[in-house]
């Protein structure tokens, strides 16, 4: 809500408050309990912990440890992760966000933070530098991401040969400031807290951490620290663009929203055929809305650049452009209201604006914000009712 600077009139303000209040009341108790602000105590239920712990240990078939753990349950200490602190035996949040638990580890995941990469994420980034054999990309991560030339396949899917000529021609593929779509392959972020190293981003390292903890005593954990760090490298992020669907994005606009609004899904590329629009919801909160491009058309980048010189003929068709702007404004409204961005919701919002005869520009006006909040509250209430009815 922080970004919301609307000039609302009296009735609009009342309506918006009512809608937001309803939205808040619809949140399940478990979810609201997980949200913490600074200095909140995080409940660490010891018994819960053991039960969970046993089930996990069984999966991993480490029976001996389970027994020993069960015996010394009283001595079990929670591992305080990022964003927590120990105050007189209680775990206290030092950040504002959502409490996450991975086995014995408790940490606070902040909402308004930079993007935390995970392996296999599809993201949209902007090239900021061309370095030897690699492009550096701005992706709203704490570091710049790296896309190696060798992680790009040739247009027909053949692996690239590492030649000097290829390296010299890197600018024919991407130049500075290009917006491109890629996926992450090696996402290793390291968090150092209280002598432990936690790695949230990589499944393997979370597992490694669990293994370390199963042999639970502090000494051993410290011993294993080096091992965990062993495959961390420098914590940088590597990207790849091996398929033809990845690559340069043109003829459209890039929107930046807080990354927590984009949830990881099976589909991040969406071709909205009815509008002739491509929508890419990058996990890093960069969203691309642009004219639909057929896969494989990207190849002709150098020719494209020459085409811009006689540009008037190849502007985006007016209808498509209207759709692009409408969808972009729908995303702007939804992200300002703090609603999770899904394709369905974006399309629904855009369609609602069409059906209630709201001009593209007026979508950013106060009235449409209020309408959108009300619609979302209604939708969630209906969803909850359906769920309860089903039971």
């Amino acid at each position, binding site marked *: 809500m922080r970004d919301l*600077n*609307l*000039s609302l009139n009296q009735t609009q303000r009342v309506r918006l408050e009512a809608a937001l209040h309803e939205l808040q009341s619809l949140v399940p108790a478990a979810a609201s309990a997980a949200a913490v602000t600074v200095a909140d105590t995080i409940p660490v239920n010891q018994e819960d912990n053991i039960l969970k712990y046993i089930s996990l240990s069984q999966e991993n078939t480490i029976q001996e440890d389970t027994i020993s753990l069960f015996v010394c349950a009283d001595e079990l200490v929670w591992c305080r992760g990022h964003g927590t602190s120990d105050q007189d035996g209680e775990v206290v949040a030092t950040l504002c966000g959502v409490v996450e638990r991975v086995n014995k580890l408790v940490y606070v995941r902040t909402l308004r933070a930079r993007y935390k990469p995970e392996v296999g994420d599809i993201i949209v980034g*902007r090239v900021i530098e061309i370095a030897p054999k690699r492009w550096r990309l*701005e992706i709203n991560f704490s570091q710049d991401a790296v896309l190696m030339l060798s992680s790009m396949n040739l247009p027909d899917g053949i692996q690239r040969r590492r030649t000097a000529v290829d390296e010299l021609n890197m600018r024919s593929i991407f*130049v*500075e*400031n*290009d*917006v491109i779509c890629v996926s992450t392959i090696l996402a290793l972020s390291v968090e150092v807290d209280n002598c432990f190293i936690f790695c949230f981003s990589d499944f393997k390292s979370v597992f490694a951490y669990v293994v370390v903890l199963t042999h639970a005593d502090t000494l051993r954990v410290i011993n294993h620290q080096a091992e965990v760090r062993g495959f961390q490298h420098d914590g940088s992020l590597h990207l790849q663009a091996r398929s033809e669907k990845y690559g*340069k*994005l*043109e*003829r*459209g*606009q*890039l929107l930046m929203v807080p990354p927590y609004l984009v949830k990881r899904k099976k589909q991040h590329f969406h071709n909205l055929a009815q509008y002739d629009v491509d929508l890419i919801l990058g996990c890093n909160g960069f969203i691309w809305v*642009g004219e639909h491009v057929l896969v494989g058309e990207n190849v002709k980048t150098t020719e*494209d*650049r020459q085409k*811009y010189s006689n*540009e*008037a003929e190849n*502007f*985006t068709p*007016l209808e498509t*452009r*209207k759709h692009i*702007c*409408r969808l*972009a*404004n729908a995303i*702007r409204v939804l992200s300002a209201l703090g609603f999770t961005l899904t394709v369905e919701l974006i399309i629904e919002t855009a369609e609602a604006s069409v059906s209630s005869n709201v*001009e*593209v*520009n007026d*979508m*950013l*006006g106060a009235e449409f914000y209020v309408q959108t909040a009300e619609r979302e509250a209604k939708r969630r209430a209906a969803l909850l009712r359906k769920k309860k009815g089903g039971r």
Partner: protein
Amino acid sequence: MVGLSEGEKHFIRGGIAQDIRTDGRKRLQFRALSVETGVIPQANGSARVRLGATEIIASVKAELGKPSILHPDKGKVSIFVDCSPTAEPTFEGRGSEELSTELAVALQRCLLGGKSGAGAAIDLSSLIVVDGKVCWDLYIDGLVVSSDGNLLDALAAAIKVALSDTGIPKVNVSLSAANDEEPEVDVSDEEFLQFDTSSVPVIITLTKVGRHYIVDATSEEESQMSSAVSVSVNRHGQICGLTKRGGAGLDPSVIFDMISVAKHVSQQFIGVLDSEIAAAEAEADE
């Protein structure tokens, strides 16, 4: 500021040519304007103006001073602009100096008139307390908190709002017999005189992109401009000042065209600004 790729630039230019910009606006539409008054309690008048993602805070401070010898019947007004590094990292340190000066000079030109003080939008003779002895010095400060294009228009609007919020304390002068003595002044804490802002102009910047020109350009659109003409227009539709930025030349007929468009747009903008000021004042009274 983040660079734009060729494709995005092309998209922006296309949008301007087709009269639907990236956020759905037409060429001559402003972004949403929101106004707050009285944001700085220490100042005599202050305002926060948001124009889309551009955010400006303006404050007016009045101090008693001595009028200059050349113009004993006029008060003094000075305008300063500061660009905060929160708006853009490049404003850190001395990075914003050039831009700040440019904006301040443009504002002075549009609001203060000539060196003699003639033709000033702010009525300088209303600032005089005792002829040749005591006058009010107005210090107008503009702070760019967040920058997303069209800073000059937003600054001028913020100053206009801040001036309309300004109350200048009433001064009682005790008459002394001797003419060359300093008069004794008694500044009232309770009574304030409202400042007359009806003649303060707004600035409309027309940014030329390709063959068309637009109002209220975002910073992305500004990166595509060839030249920009800022026209300050008052309530009566009179032109108070004119500045041009950007290297590209303009045909004289285009400039006349731009001026008449700016005059038309300004009357709408003044209307919007007036209603926003009224709403902000009503809110402050609550």
